[in-house]
């Protein structure tokens, strides 16, 4: 139930993101993204994509090839899932750039990316700023 709500919220957030690129969108985890795919497209995958695997874009290609037959919910979900995976990826790779200043200021002597992250998560001023948001978007808090 929580998952469905999160996904619904994710879809709204994505729609909002598409309308105004300046507005914030909550990124969701890879696990939640593919859980939605399994829930909404699972029966179509088993029907039309037998023997095909999740990797290499094969499930996506298969569902797109059978676009006329797969359920409308699945078609919508597929687009959202692809978008949220890309969004999470972008959030994670922007972490170093967005947090550069805060790292220099609050966690200068800390070694190792994992330790830097724990250090940032403890600094209240970081949590309130852009870097804090970047950490949330990356799914690391």
């Amino acid at each position, binding site marked *: 139930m929580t998952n469905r709500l999160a996904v619904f919220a994710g879809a709204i957030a994505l729609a909002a993101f598409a309308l105004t690129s300046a507005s914030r969108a909550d990124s969701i985890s890879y*696990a939640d993204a593919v859980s939605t795919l399994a829930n909404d497209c699972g029966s179509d995958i088993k029907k039309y994509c037998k023997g095909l695997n*999740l*990797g290499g874009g094969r499930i996506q290609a298969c569902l797109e090839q059978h676009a006329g037959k797969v359920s409308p919910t699945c078609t919508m979900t597929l687009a959202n899932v692809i978008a949220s995976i890309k969004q999470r990826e972008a959030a994670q790779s922007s972490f170093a750039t967005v947090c550069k200043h805060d790292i220099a200021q609050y966690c200068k002597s800390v070694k190792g990316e*994992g330790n830097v992250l724990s250090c940032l998560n403890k600094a209240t001023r970081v949590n309130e700023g852009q870097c804090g948001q970047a950490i949330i978007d990356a799914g690391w808090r």
Partner: protein
Amino acid sequence: MKNIGFSALLTIGLTLSSGQALAQELNDTQLVRTLGRIESAAPAIDIALLVEEASANAGKGVANLPNWQKLSKLSQLIVEIEFENDSVAIEPKSYRTVGLIADALHHPNLRRYKFLVVGHTNATGDANHNLELSAQRANAITEALSTTFAIKPDRLYSIGVGEEWPLDPANPKAAENRRVQLINLGLVK
């Protein structure tokens, strides 16, 4: 030793629960914590040697081979990933588990490490076929991780050991012997 106990706990959680309950049993924070526990003296693993030994011992088991025993000393956990019958296609209901692994492997605490996926079957069917299928399935998991979930391919290794290393050696056909081991191999060079 502690690691092994924890892995077993996770597996039990996974086996008994399903659907959303599974997400509560296994989450990426647990994965990050379990896989991130690094012993300073972790042994180096020669994957080509493991593959060679598994093929040479199809039907005889690998549990007593020193190179395979080394794997037990590394940080790891066991997950269940369901596949279509006799196929490399991951069942949609197991997508979440692969996604959880991806979330964990992208975490800064684990981003410097490389991982080995070991595929296991139970003893139903031909030992050589099981060895081959488990290798293809383990490879399917690392392929999904490196494409759909953008984990760098140089951090991922896969091998299949078929039915040669059962969790429950007294019952080689037990369902719990079918499993996937995810092992931290140490720093990416």
